[in-house]
């Protein structure tokens, strides 16, 4: 079952095209990782899907409906969640308020949903009333992911969720990603930690220069010596 379909997308900033004729599909309840060198256009891809960048060419279909060029707040309403790589929390708001902001478009805060998020990230419970700006990088990442989960998205776009985290936390974030996925959320993950990401991914896509180079099952990419040598650092 196809959830999200990108057809020949071209996108970029100003006159520069970063994404070139890029096509990709994401199935329901699937983890898809996007890997590739810096500047490959991975973040641009996520921004284009989420409507932060309007594609110059191509089509985006989400849940069998064309959503090309819709603004982020409409994408949120359609069931898409996005966690940017940096500045992905509101530092002067408390943990609880950050989560509440995730459900801003709903007039009422759903207490059950909040409890679910805290059950997923129990480490945040004692920090509920603390300002997020005072928390560690790992906890901030959890707040950011929790915020994006508040509206029960069908797909969650994560931009480098483990960048600049301590190794111990990296493992923990990946565990959480698997747990989120088990609850029925499909994920597209852009990552530098390619090996760990591929290990938990159903499928992976290797990108370079704004194009898709290779696509296969996550473990298959891991075991592909050629791709490993070129893109995963041996």
């Amino acid at each position, binding site marked *: 079952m196809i959830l999200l379909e990108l057809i020949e997308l071209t996108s970029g900033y100003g006159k520069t095209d970063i994404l070139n004729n890029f096509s990709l599909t994401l199935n329901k309840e699937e983890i898809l990782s996007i890997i590739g060198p810096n500047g490959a256009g991975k973040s641009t891809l996520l921004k284009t899907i*989420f409507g*932060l960048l309007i594609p110059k060419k191509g089509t985006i279909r989400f849940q069998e409906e064309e959503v090309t060029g819709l*603004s*982020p*707040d409409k994408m*949120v*309403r359609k069931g898409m969640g*996005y966690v*940017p790589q940096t*500045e*992905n*929390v*509101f*530092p*002067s*708001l408390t943990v609880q*308020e*950050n989560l*509440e*902001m*995730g459900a*801003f*478009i709903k*007039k009422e805060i759903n207490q059950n949903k909040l409890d679910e998020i805290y059950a997923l990230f129990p480490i945040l419970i004692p920090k509920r009333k603390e300002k997020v700006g005072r928390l560690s990088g790992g906890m901030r990442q959890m707040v950011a992911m929790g*915020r994006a989960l508040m*509206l029960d998205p069908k797909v969650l776009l994560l931009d480098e969720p483990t960048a600049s985290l301590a190794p111990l936390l990296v493992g923990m974030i990946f565990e959480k990603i698997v747990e989120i996925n088990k609850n029925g959320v499909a994920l597209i993950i852009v990552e530098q930690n390619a090996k760990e990401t591929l290990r938990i991914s159903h499928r992976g896509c290797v990108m370079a220069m704004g194009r898709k180079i290779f696509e296969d099952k996550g473990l298959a990419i891991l075991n592909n010596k050629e791709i490993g040598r070129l893109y995963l650092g041996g």
Partner: protein
Amino acid sequence: MFELFFYGIVLGSIIALGSIGLSLIYGILRFANFAHGDLMTAGAYLALFFVTQLFEWLGIPDNTIGSLSFGIRMIITFPIVMIIISLLSIIIDQILYDPLRMKKSSPVILAMASLGVSFIIQMMVIIIWGSDSLFYKPGILRPAMELPLNIKIRPDQIFIILVVFFSISSLHLFLKYTRMGKAMRATSDNPELAKVTGIQTRNIIRLTWAIGGAMAALGGILYGIDVQLHPGMGWGFLLPLFAAAILGGIGNMYGAMIGGLVLGVVQQLSTSFLLPTYKPAIAFIIMILILIVRPQGIFGGRTLWK
């Protein structure tokens, strides 16, 4: 000395009303609104029109309440003028600043545009009301009450402090507990992320102008009650407003509030050893010192050049 301190609190609470708005607008729109003081002027003069002309014409009695220097006319005027200046602020934003933002103009361009707005408001006030100082109730005796420690204060001043306390507390409750208030703080923290979360930042911008405008109008009227009205009054407030906002950390509402009080008190205390005409210089010195020593302000905010 105690008396000056008290006058400082009165002045400081009026500055706080202006600097909170200035700081909120900076926090969300990242531009220095040079016309903010003139919104105070506009509010003060609009109130003058209501109190001395419109309500006279409508036949609303002109009695004073207790030992205050004003009466029911002024009490009705407060909310009406605050709403009008709120709307005016939103309209100015829609016809001037919003198109500039759409063109992705730099904050400097926006600040210059606001300077233009400032001149327009000042000139309009001069055209309509003239350039002389005016009072809401000319010729009224404003007796002071004697308190222990030889403090002489006027009932109006107590009224001012209470009104400011009430409005700032209300704003605090709004920002802390309501859905829109939280969204406002979120947008001030990170406008891009606010959009990603589905917050319609255009509405937040309008709300910010409305609150900033209402607070400025209130400050302007209160200053008019305490001192007098003058077309340049808001312009004269600009330096203290900025100094207070920067002192508290620009973008930080609570900082702006404390900053306003500190500035008011320091300015008034300075008159015990300096000529009162040096008051703006004191504001300027405080601003320069803060910018050199701690540009993010005492309570932390954004650095000005981010």
